[in-house]
């Protein structure tokens, strides 16, 4: 177990280095000039030359890469062309909103996925009425789901808000749900949940299907095992069989898919945040793309990519903790 953790952590570090190397190379070929981001377009040639020297842009490439890594480790992601603030400062203020949305959405995805798998595997009556539409929705681009959700639940029914988080993001921790719980404001909790609902569900549909399908096929395999038939023939109800004999033996693939999907959701969140004006890191990325703000784009890629890589490593380790046979 310990060896596995060590090995998996090591491979995550290698991945992070590769990701940073890719970003470094892209930064070198990207047309934007980081010096002008600091000094503005009208800086004097002397000031530009001095800043180039200061930023180490005259050094050989390998030295620049080492410096890039050192800067990353110090949290220096460069300066945004658009906001003229350090990218790290920007990201710090936007990350909590993204984490909140993705985690909420992940819970929804797991619930929907389990419902999908169990209703299919137990052949529950009416289950197809749930699975069919879900499958159809999963084929739609997320932005279309978002628009449909806004038209239906905001414009037509008027029951859900269509943009923002409902409260000021500059709350103490940045996690507004957490804050409203800590400070004991039930109204704020309700309001923030209302705002989470549409973007959260839209983001959850595709992962829910991925989790549901894997879980369903592993449930089906377990259900056809001899010991399950024995359990059934001694008169247990289908739910009792499921709970006592099936779930533990078939949850593995579902867990690994869930972890993987959690990683993907950090990439998928960009479009959803933009449509719902969710003040998160994805919306920041979406705003940086049209103005070719490469330092900001690189910063988001690095931060979300790190979250993705770490998530996958943690999931792998948790899986081995649950089933040591997988460490082989």
């Amino acid at each position, binding site marked *: 177990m310990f060896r596995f953790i060590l090995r998996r952590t090591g491979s995550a570090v290698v*991945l992070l280095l*590769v990701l940073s190397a*890719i970003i470094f190379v892209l930064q070198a070929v990207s047309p934007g000039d980081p010096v002008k981001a600091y000094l503005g377009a009208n800086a004097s040639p002397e000031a530009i030359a001095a800043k180039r020297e200061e930023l180490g842009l005259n050094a050989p490439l390998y030295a620049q890469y080492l410096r890039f890594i050192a800067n990353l480790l110090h949290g220096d992601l460069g300066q945004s062309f658009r906001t003229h603030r350090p990218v790290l400062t920007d990201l710090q203020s936007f990350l909590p909103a993204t984490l909140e949305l993705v985690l909420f959405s992940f819970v929804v995805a797991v619930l929907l996925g389990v419902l999908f798998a169990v209703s299919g595997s137990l052949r529950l009556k009416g289950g197809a009425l749930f699975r069919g539409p879900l499958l159809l929705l*999963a*084929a739609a681009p997320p*932005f279309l789901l978002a628009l449909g959700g806004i038209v239906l639940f905001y414009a037509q029914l008027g029951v859900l808000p269509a943009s923002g988080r409902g409260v000021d993001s500059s709350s103490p921790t940045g996690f507004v749900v957490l804050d409203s719980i800590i400070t004991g404001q039930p109204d704020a909790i309700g309001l923030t949940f209302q705002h989470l609902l549409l973007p959260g569900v839209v983001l959850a549909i595709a992962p829910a299907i991925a989790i549901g399908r894997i879980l369903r096929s592993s449930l089906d395999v377990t259900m056809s095992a001899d010991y399950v038939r024995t359990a059934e023939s001694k008169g247990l109800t289908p739910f009792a069989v499921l709970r006592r004999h099936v779930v533990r033996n078939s949850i593995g693939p579902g867990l690994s898919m869930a972890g993987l999907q959690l990683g993907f959701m950090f990439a998928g969140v*960009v479009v959803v945040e933009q449509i719902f004006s969710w003040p998160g890191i994805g919306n920041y*990325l979406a705003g940086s793309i049209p103005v070719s703000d490469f330092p900001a*784009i690189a910063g988001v890629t690095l931060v979300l990519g790190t979250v993705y890589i770490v998530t996958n490593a943690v999931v*792998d380790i948790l899986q081995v903790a649950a089933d040591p046979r997988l460490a082989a």
Partner: protein
Amino acid sequence: MTALPEVGTRRFRMPAASLGAHAGTRLSVAILVALGILTLVALFARLLAPYDPVQPIGALNLAPGAEGHPLGTDSIGRDILSRTLIGVQVSWFSSLIIVASGLVIGGLIGVAAGVFGGWVDAALMRFTDLFLALPGTLVAIAIVAALGYNLQNTLIGIAVVWWPYYARIIRGEVKSFAARPHVEAARVAGASRTRIVFRHIVPGVVPTAIVTASLDIGNVVLLLAGLSFLGLGQPAPAPELGADTARNLSQLLSEWWVPVIPGLAVLVLSLLSNLGGDAVRTLLAKRR
């Protein structure tokens, strides 16, 4: 890298909406015919489009069903049907190009790794797993952002992150075929390595590769639409499905059809490709 990421990553691109998993032969053929028609429509989109997609030609914001504009017009009076047709052309052929590039690059690497084995296999698969474990969408976004926004760079960005999945699957198939008796027999009979690879192994891998690719097209359609929505595609005023939705978002609550119709076209493309993937799988499974 480790044994684990494979558990999920090998299957990480699920056929998103496999509705016809148990469809019969007839339904499968019908779906493939529909896909063929779609491809023809995409191919001749320029001829089929009633108007120039970038020129304002009608009244502003006509609702679908208007005289001469079955899907209406947008906020500067361009024909939505014409724009959508060209958008479908761009999306469909771009997706096919990406999947083909994945097949070719992944196929070459997978076959090489499977055939040569040893350190070549180890090195190539290390490299593949590395790419497989990176956040593909984000890397693609960063690549396009660095190279500049146009369709060609978007295709490059996606192609760079898309092949590892194919390399993994094809390498696995090559390995399993190489261990089969008919390959052993060919070797004993004195066939050259080249002959064994191209006559006895590669043809056996083709069906799996085709099924994998056809189930993957829908994923590419959605990813491309997402990147286009973010502005990583053709610059305006070129018609593109994702971008046409994004550019007209502000009209959602007044003239919903302007942003929604391009999105619906993406849905149709992705749904048809998913059904087509299932159909290909069904038909190939029956042939065996």
